[in-house]
């Protein structure tokens, strides 16, 4: 479980990968659609999807000649990984803000 968890976190550490993951949460998509909507090449999108898939966050299925990518339906784990990463980053930002000397006034 721990390994899966860390894989998920590591996979979502990359901003482009996180954006692709969020997009797939919105709607399942083929590689070509993702390459069209993100400023990265098709091979780069494929590579990101491979990492997300290996981390257990994303799965794919055949639809005719295309492969449609979507979040893994056992994806509570995926959401946990996402939120874990989100809150760790946010609390670090909170710490930085709260420890700043008060400058208003």
């Amino acid at each position, binding site marked *: 479980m721990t390994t899966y968890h860390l894989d998920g976190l590591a996979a979502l550490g990359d901003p482009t990968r996180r954006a692709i993951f969020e997009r797939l*949460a919105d709607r399942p998509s083929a590689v070509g659609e993702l390459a069209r909507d993100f400023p990265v090449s098709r091979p780069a999108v494929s590579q990101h999807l491979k990492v997300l898939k290996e981390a257990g966050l994303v799965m794919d299925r055949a639809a005719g000649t295309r492969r449609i990518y979507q979040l893994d339906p056992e*994806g509570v784990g995926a*959401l*946990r990984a*996402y*939120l874990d990463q989100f809150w760790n980053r946010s*609390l670090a930002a909170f710490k930085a803000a709260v420890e700043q000397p008060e400058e208003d006034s």
Partner: protein
Amino acid sequence: MTMQATDTSVRTSITVEAPIERAFSLFTEGIGTWWPPEHHILEAELAEMVFEPRVGGRILDRGVDGSECAWARVLVYEPPARVVFSWDISLSWQIEADHEKTSEVEVRFTAESTERTRVELEHRHIERHGEGWEQMQAAVSPPNGWNLQRFADAARAA
């Protein structure tokens, strides 16, 4: 695959060099000073984040054009020790209108000294969003998907 109760929560904590009152007020009413800037739902440029400091209050993003996006409801407000708010956001950063499908975040503040505060955060009932996902997938895959798809489209168009 069975989930244990703990599998549907995320827990994290941090210790900050600040008095408990300041930690609590910056976490709540000062949320706009630390919330990750890329995580907003508004279409318009963000003017401010507002945390209404009472039970039943809302946490919302306000745009420069006056538009508002309320993405949380304050469920418990006990300064400076504890606050609980709902998480009315789907994973794709859209507002979840069905409160049955929202999770909640509890934040507890403990004074370790007059100048040091421990902040413990638990984001729980994450599985409630999961139920939404399954329906969302059901709505997307077969041809006769129903209202969740319409909701998703409406949310995207809004």
